[in-house]
């Protein structure tokens, strides 16, 4: 499987739920390729992914609905392969090939 893929990139799936998809042109699921090393030569982590999403993918100017103080805003859960990112090291988690990263905004309606 890994033979065919570019050695310099990591392929991941990013998903949005709870209304966050509206900030990403109503796409609920994105297949992304990110560099295997970030701007400092480190392995890309979630913090890098959040910056990448905000700077390159997100066209909506309302960035404050996604990030606040350089991290995802309160009320958004980040789930790494179906587990709360707090179980995986939060934004320090180093992204691996094939990871599924889900951003969920809390809902309040009832």
């Amino acid at each position, binding site marked *: 499987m890994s033979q065919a893929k570019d050695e310099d990139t990591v392929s991941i799936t990013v998903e949005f739920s709870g*209304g966050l998809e509206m900030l990403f042109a109503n796409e609920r699921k994105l297949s992304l390729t990110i560099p295997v090393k970030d701007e400092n030569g480190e392995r890309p982590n979630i913090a890098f992914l959040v910056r990448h999403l905000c700077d390159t993918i997100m*066209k909506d100017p309302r960035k404050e609905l996604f990030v606040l103080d350089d991290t995802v805003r309160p009320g958004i859960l980040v789930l790494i392969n179906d587990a709360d990112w707090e179980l995986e090291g939060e934004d320090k988690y180093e992204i691996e090939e094939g990871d599924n990263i889900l951003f969920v905004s809390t809902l309040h309606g009832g």
Partner: protein
Amino acid sequence: MAYETVIRTLRQKITSCESQLQDLRRHLAEAEYQNQRQRALSHPERNVHSSADPLAHDFTHGMHDDFTSEIFAALSHSEEAAPPKRRWPLETTEYKRYGRQLIMPEIGLQGQLRLKKASVLIVGVGGLGCPAAAYLVGAGVGTVGLVDGDTVEESNLHRQILHSTAKVNMTKVDSAIVSLHSLNPHVNLVPHYGRLTPETAISTLQHYDLVLDCTDTPASRYLISDTCVLLGKPLVSASALRTDGQLMVLNNPPLPPGNAAGGPCYRCVFPKPPPPESVVSCGDGGILGPVVGTMGVLQALEALKVLTKEPSTSVTRSASPDPPSLLIFSAYSSPMFRTIRLRTRKPKCAACSAHATVTAEALNSGSLDYVQFCGTINPVDALGPNERISVDNYAKIRLDVNPFTGLEPSKDSHILVDVREKVQFDLCSLEGSVNVPFSTVSSTSSKVKNGPGTEPITEAGWVAELRQHVDKPIFVVCRMGNDSQVTVKKLKELGLDNGGQRWIGDIRGGLRAWRNNVDKDFPEY
């Protein structure tokens, strides 16, 4: 004219009958409650389990003889008579009513007895609370309390299944009690009118075994979670919006704050509230009935699982509860359901850790301001008076013949921009208006070079369109009059006002004000 009078008279009659009906229902509920209390007192060993008159029911439908005689005995000799020995742990009618769940190993006799002994508080009797209450009452939970401060509105009925057309304007609590009582008269239903507040939270929740959060604001979610932690009650929390829903069982097991083996609370998962501008209500965002219904039904299911669970007796094999998880429902995704593993209790949680700052004293004294904690959005007040026009004045521009020139009013004299989302615009709109959805407005960058000769490379189509007809003033309208103001600012940032030569302003109060003051037939949705 004659018809108008008839219609008005009929409307008045209906209104007065409805209010009479509502009074009667409230009296009925009170009488039933007193009746059931009396029976509970006169027959203390039997669980409080009915707010109905069982005799009336049984004379109509027939029932087992010894139950009838038992009731007569209970009613005729109140205190002195020793209660007759019971032959079976459940009433005969209960075997029949709950038979289909009784034969399931997940419930069984012990499970049903646990349900009968249990009490559940449902906070919020709306889209989540209605289906949740229906299933819990149907399943024979002994006592179900209902908290809500609202009255039934027509726009609730597509999803709030306990309410009905005839019960519009009735309190949601009364409406739900009428429906639930006819569903299962054996359940003790307790009304709590009004919203839950920090001052009333502990006294309201403390007598219940389990709580369902069926509310619709972040402030109430933090309040309910904090109170559940303080009182040691498991909490089943759900929410829904548009086509999505979320469900969590929190504080399960409900161990005291500081005990890391307890289940996480709402604050563990969401330590900080979301910014208020990111919170969307069902009224603004919309909601599909079966989506919120699904979540309410799932809350009832989780509640039944918690309530019927066998208590762990063995010290060596303490039954570990399911690991904390978040269920995500997404009606238009495949698969529709997803379960996410959640964290355990947060070591620094403000509510459930050893360092908790949320205390019963703080709650009771009212020093915890949940509304302030979650923040509020002030109504937009972005424009000066000369950038705004009232609906009445706008109506003159649109509808009146100019008294001096005798000229017909021309809708062509100006541009009316309606910034509601397209789906709302398609429902109803003012003739001649142009739709530029607010989401489009917001996602357009206002960093446009506007100097002579430096035409922006790619200007959004809608901006280019408005840039034409420089002579025509632009009026902006929306549903309530907030987005329109923000849009006016944006249009000016984009330089559409031609350096102040072209008037751009908003219609104050939006289409709601238009309906209230100008056109009564403009649909309300």
